[in-house]
């Protein structure tokens, strides 16, 4: 799918008639059917991936088949409607959030222009309130007194194939970023609605490959890239060699080592692809500098959790590897790398799903003695919490001038900001390692804008959609680029490192993307190093 030229898209988002630019559609939204064209949708999951997931104990991924959203016939099971309505009923019993969010919305519209997908596409169904109405209308019709009696008059509508297709379209044009929930006077969280929609769709075999293939890889090989143990180790070893090439310090990371004090888990993308690689090199340098007794795991080699984008059962199953491996290796606690949605799972779901982790100890920094009371039950801390504490206690030998080629800004990833409250630790670290500035206030912290491609949407076939939904973020970066000469967008998220790179290449080609720990690693003065002038820090090519 070719992507519109920058000039075209720049004009399109401003001038094309859309609800975002001032044109009100003449037809009621219920009367506008969805039409799937290439570029509108992410490819459906491959049959063998769905079959594999369905074969796993505790998971339910029925109706594996070849199908296309563009076809009229989606090859659904005969009783699909019953499955969906029953599934909705079951979820109303299981999630109070769903019931409350279905019943309480007053359609005040405060959320309408808070969504990056709405701002970038102008599609009314991308207003969080309408995205929820797609489900709420069916809920009213089948589960409320007013809807049963008054039907369409009370905003209800029957579940049809058209509605199902609409659900597929718009539950995959939401990144569960939760920005709308910050502004909602009742705290209605569209992420919850999108999760429920996706769960329901999986019940009849509707899912996308970019999520289900990584989910099945994560289950089988331990990481979403499908790297087998030896390859995973090779990749990390390569990075250690690169660090040696740059600094002259030989690093020998260990894998699956029993008796290590700390298990370190980060998104596997960091050991596989630029620019995450440099963040992983930062981890290696940081831990070497500290002489930390830690190990990587090839079995629990994925921090990210594609189950979060699928259903709560898959999320639980994939997440369970972390505690299982920590217990097997006999570590004291777990340190987690920079990742957004991974940290939503770790902060809000892990302990509930797979705890209690009685076999671990309350995390205590071996270097500063700081006890991380905020993780007393989960026993897993964020690398930024760990690093900020080290800096505060003067445990890092930092030379900020090594990052003088960088003028950074900081992108709060959705989940650490809005589902964790991790905002100032990364900023504290940045203050000590680089010269940086904030983006405008309505685009940072709890009001941060998503990269536009989270929740498994960073697939190439929907690139234009991604560039549209990432526009609010890119636009804020552009502002500080023009005003302060910012050339680096730092973040604490592996999906961001991949997706923001595409986004910057498109909207702001002079701005790079990096993880915070890359900047930390580059600023660290290692004992015994023989480092020369590295004009581009860890990214310098050395031959």
């Amino acid at each position, binding site marked *: 799918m070719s992507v519109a030229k920058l000039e075209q898209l*720049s004009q399109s*988002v*401003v001038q094309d008639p859309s609800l*975002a630019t001032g044109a*009100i559609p003449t037809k009621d939204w219920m009367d506008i059917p969805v039409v799937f064209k290439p570029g509108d949708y992410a490819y459906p999951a491959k049959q063998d991936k769905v079959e594999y997931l369905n074969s796993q104990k*505790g998971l339910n991924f029925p109706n594996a088949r070849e199908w296309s959203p563009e076809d009229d016939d989606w090859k659904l099971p005969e009783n699909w409607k019953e499955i969906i309505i029953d599934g909705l009923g079951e979820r109303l019993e299981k999630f*109070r959030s*769903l*019931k*409350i969010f279905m*019943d309480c919305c*007053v*359609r005040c*519209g*405060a959320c309408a*222009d808070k969504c990056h997908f709405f*701002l970038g596409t102008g599609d009314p169904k991308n207003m969080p309130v309408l995205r929820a109405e797609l489900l709420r209308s069916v809920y009213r019709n089948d589960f409320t*007194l*007013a809807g049963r009696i008054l039907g369409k*008059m*009370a905003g209800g509508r029957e579940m049809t194939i058209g509605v199902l297709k609409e659900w597929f379209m718009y539950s995959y044009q939401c990144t569960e970023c939760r920005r709308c*929930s*910050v*502004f*909602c006077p*009742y*705290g*209605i*969280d569209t992420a919850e609605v999108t999760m429920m929609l996706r769960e329901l769709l999986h019940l009849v075999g509707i899912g996308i490959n970019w999520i289900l293939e990584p989910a099945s890889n994560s289950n*089988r090989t331990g990481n979403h890239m499908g790297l*087998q*143990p*030896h390859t995973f180790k*090779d990749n990390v070893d390569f990075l250690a060699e690169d660090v040696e090439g740059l600094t002259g310090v030989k690093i020998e990371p260990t894998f699956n080592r029993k008796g290590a004090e700390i298990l370190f888990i980060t998104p596997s993308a960091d050991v596989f692809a630029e620019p995450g690689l440099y963040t992983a090199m930062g981890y290696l340098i940081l831990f070497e500098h500290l002489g930390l007794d830690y190990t990587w795991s*090839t*079995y629990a080699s994925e921090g990210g959790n594609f189950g979060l984008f699928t259903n*709560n*059962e898959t999320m639980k*199953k994939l997440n*369970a*590897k972390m505690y*299982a491996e920590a217990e097997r290796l006999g570590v004291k606690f777990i340190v987690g790398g920079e990742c957004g949605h991974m940290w939503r799972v770790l*902060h809000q*779901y892990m*302990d*509930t799903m797979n705890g*209690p982790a009685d076999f671990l100890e309350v995390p205590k920094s071996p270097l500063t003695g700081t006890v991380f009371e*905020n*993780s007393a039950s*989960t026993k*897993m801390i964020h690398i930024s919490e760990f690093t*900020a504490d080290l800096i505060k206690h003067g445990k890092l030998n930092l030379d900020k001038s090594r990052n003088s080629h960088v003028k950074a800004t900081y992108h709060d990833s959705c989940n650490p900001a809005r*589902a964790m*409250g*991790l*905002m100032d630790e990364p900023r*504290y670290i940045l203050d000590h390692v680089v010269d940086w500035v904030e983006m405008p206030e309505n685009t940072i912290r*709890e009001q941060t804008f998503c990269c536009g491609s989270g929740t498994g949407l960073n697939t190439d076939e929907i690139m234009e959609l991604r560039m549209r939904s990432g*526009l609010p973020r890119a*636009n804020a970066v552009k502002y500080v680029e023009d005003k302060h000469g910012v050339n680096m967008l730092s973040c604490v998220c592996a999906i961001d490192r991949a997706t923001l790179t595409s986004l910057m290449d498109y909207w702001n080609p002079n701005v790079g993307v990096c993880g915070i720990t890359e900047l930390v690693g580059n600023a660290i003065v290692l004992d015994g190093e023989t480092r020369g002038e590295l004009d581009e820090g860890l990214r310098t090519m050395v031959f």
Partner: protein
Amino acid sequence: MKYAFSFLAVIALILIAWLGSQIPGMQYFFGVAIPYLAVMVFLGGFIYQVVQWAKSPVPFSIQTTCGQAKSLDFVKHNRLESPHTTPEVVARMALEILTFRSLFRNTKSEIYAGPKITYESSKWLWLFALIFHYSFLVIVIRHMRLFLNPVPEVIAWLDWADSMFEIGTPALYMTDAGLLIGLLFLFSRRLTNRQVRYISLANDYFPLLLLIAIGVTGVLMRMFLRDGIDIAAIKQLGVGLVTFSPVITADIGSIFYIHLFLVCVLLVYFPFSKLMHLGGVFLSPTRNMKNDSRQVRHINPWNPEIKVHAYSAYEDEFREFMVDAGIPVEKEPEPTEEAPAEAPA
């Protein structure tokens, strides 16, 4: 269309009460039977809804954090936006419910050539919503004087304070004006704000028009259509209703029955509509949960029994690769037999 429907519905309700209350003997129907029925439906429906919500568990800790979490000592904790203790949650909820804090954050986005997106502070919705809700609250409390004998001091004082500017005769209540101004803003916003207009349902216009009609009939009764408004008889009916001995001792003007009937409709409509946000806001998990989910384990009562893809299965699949790569294994590989010679092609 949707507002036209709602408008016609409210007109129809007014006609029902107006005509109906003029039929001899029907005063007791509109003045006693309907109010009792409405209050019963309201209370029963409200409790039913809240119980329905409460019956579903909160399986996960899904607080929305709108500020820095409690973390390291030197990182400043935002206690209101990322509450860590119960009192902090109570404070957050109080601000949300009493001051509409989330709505206060509202911004308005515009896209300009460039492209350039701007986010401008937009507090009108917050302001008028607040005016409407507080006016409504005071009006409800003020009306208690019609049901209580003697009138509690506090209500008498509120009545006095609300009309202290003495505009007109009898003095206009500020909250009557506030209620109607707030409602008119909310209604016109539904028609003029393009996004809100597009999402609005009949369910959104109807309660606004119903409330406007209640407000207007109330003001008309007090200020203009005073013929037949025998306040003593109304009070006698009100006190009679709450003491379960209602009597109607005089001919009360139709405007009173219209006003009362519309209020009854509101009570009946309330539990089955979006107006239940009054109850729901207290139970919203993104706002009423502590952000301590790594410190204290949250329990999911239906936590499914799902086993991890076991390490042993993983090692079984990849053992040889692991051994070759020098990765420690639990079980050493069995010595392999000589591979059989390949059959000639």
